[in-house]
């Protein structure tokens, strides 16, 4: 069941997910802990709060990268289950938090937590990504889905007040930068060449990304694999 304002229960972590057993929560935690990136992402936390002060999501949501680092460092299995089912989807993955003086990477921990959530088909990950089917479809098939002109500053308040100013004069700014790479791609998504695209398809199959999508949305998976397999066969 997705968490909504109606069923949100800020009581004890252990009471919040009565449907999941401790063993299940611990299994998910160990999957995160055993990720090869884990020991580079987490050393120890002395709760200084620098990651929270730098975190744009923390200003808008009930989200704290510190609590994530702390809960992981303490190996607090109950709290981590809270985090994997709720908190991680409020992270913008901007990695402002990597300025941690202990050299932790809370954003990286969120990355691992999200992957574990997806791989294990947690309902919360499906809910969180429900609105993104189209984005996933475009990115996976085309290697790209955004053209610079699609970026609406109003949608990204955490980019700060300068964005308005920049976006108003975007064409002028671009003309001021004589960069070949920007030519012809300001109003259309970047075209990924066929060789790169086929490599991407291969990587997505080999790296387990397609398995994650299958767990997330089976019909989307079918749609994607039909096209990809056909392209890969043609070579």
């Amino acid at each position, binding site marked *: 069941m997705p968490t909504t304002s109606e069923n949100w229960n800020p009581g*004890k972590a252990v009471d919040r997910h009565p449907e999941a057993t401790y063993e299940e929560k611990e299994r998910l935690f160990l999957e995160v802990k055993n990720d090869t990136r884990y020991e580079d992402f987490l*050393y*120890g*936390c*002395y*709760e200084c709060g620098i990651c929270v002060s730098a975190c744009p999501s923390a200003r808008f949501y009930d989200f704290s990268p*510190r*609590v994530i680092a*702390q*809960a992981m*460092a*303490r*190996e607090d299995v109950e*709290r981590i289950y809270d985090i994997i089912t709720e908190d991680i989807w409020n992270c913008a993955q901007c990695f402002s938090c990597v300025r941690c003086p*202990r050299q932790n990477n809370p954003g990286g921990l969120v990355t691992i937590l999200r992957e574990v959530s997806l791989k294990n088909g947690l309902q919360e990950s499906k809910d969180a990504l429900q609105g993104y089917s189209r984005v996933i479809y475009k990115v996976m098939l085309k290697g790209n889905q955004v053209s610079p002109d699609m970026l609406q500053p109003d949608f990204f308040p955490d980019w700060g007040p300068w964005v308005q100013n920049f976006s108003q004069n975007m064409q002028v700014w671009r003309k001021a930068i004589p960069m070949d790479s920007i030519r012809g791609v300001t109003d259309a998504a970047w075209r990924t060449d066929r060789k790169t695209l086929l490599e991407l398809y291969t990587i997505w199959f080999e790296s387990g990304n397609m398995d994650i999508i299958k767990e997330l949305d089976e019909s989307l998976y079918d749609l994607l694999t039909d096209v990809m397999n056909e392209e890969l066969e043609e070579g």
Partner: protein
Amino acid sequence: MTSGKVLIIGGGPSGLESARCVAELGGEAILIEKRERLGGTPDRENYAKLTHHWRDASEAMADMAAAVTSNKNVEVKYQAEVKGMSGSAGNFTVEIEAGGAAESLNVGAVIIATGFQHFDPGRATQYYNYYSFPDVITLTDLEKMLKEHKVVRPSNGEAPKKIAFIQCVGSRDRQIGNEYCSKVCCGIASKQAIELRQQLPDSKVMIFYIDMRMYGYWENEIYWPAQEKYKVNYVKGVVSEVLQKGDKLLMRGEDTTMSRPMEVTMDMVVLSVGMEPSAGTRAISQLLGVKQNQYGFIEAGGAGGLDPVATSQEGIFVAGAASGPADLDDSIAKAGLAAARALASVRKVMA
């Protein structure tokens, strides 16, 4: 008659270092020790490892004692106590009792190195029940267990699986009257937590604290390794009470940085007791007429505050934890300074 000799009261780390330095600087020292052996509190309270290169405390104290007993310019008197004193800087007459016999010493300067004692947790204002529950112990109790490599729950003789430290017991507490920080307990608790994890690798160790005061290299040498390598859990929040629950101890407190009240059960709870002036420090202050501060420690610092071994009496100096909470580095550094200052003082009078 003026004398060039320096009397050192107390045979712990700072007394030993004072005696060694006086002798090495070409002076003559008399060191008197109440017990029948040297080594002070680290020896008497069975300290396990020191934070200095993780050295065995007994070995380190034996080295310090040997440097004194092997020096012909130091006379050591055991089972000796000061009974009275008269005179002034350069010419003190000190009445002592050594091994049951009264003696009179003529010395030019005195160094007080009578140290501290650990806070008695029976006086704690929180409900930690040290004297009611056998599995509630102190840092010193645990130090002895670690030294013997036999960490067990006193209640049943089994190895504890979950152990918690409670910091600032008897320190930073207006209700008790000890508003000061005892300075070493954060480092010692963390050191012990590491030793616990080494001796009992299956154990879970938590430290409940107000602030972790891991100054200087303790941060990287003790605190970070405790967290990162030994997986010791630090929780910011003071525990208000320790209760019995079945054969476990129930702790109540707040997990402040997670914003939630907390109740956890433990097999063993270690109270990080702070420092208070020793009975010897209190008694000698009265006998020698040196000023004590409101906590009973000897007031040091001199008129300008930057004279850390000066007492209110000329010719009488203080070293180590007799003047306030101090770690071994502080104690030994002050001991060397006190030795230099004492010798300079007698030489000035003799000249």
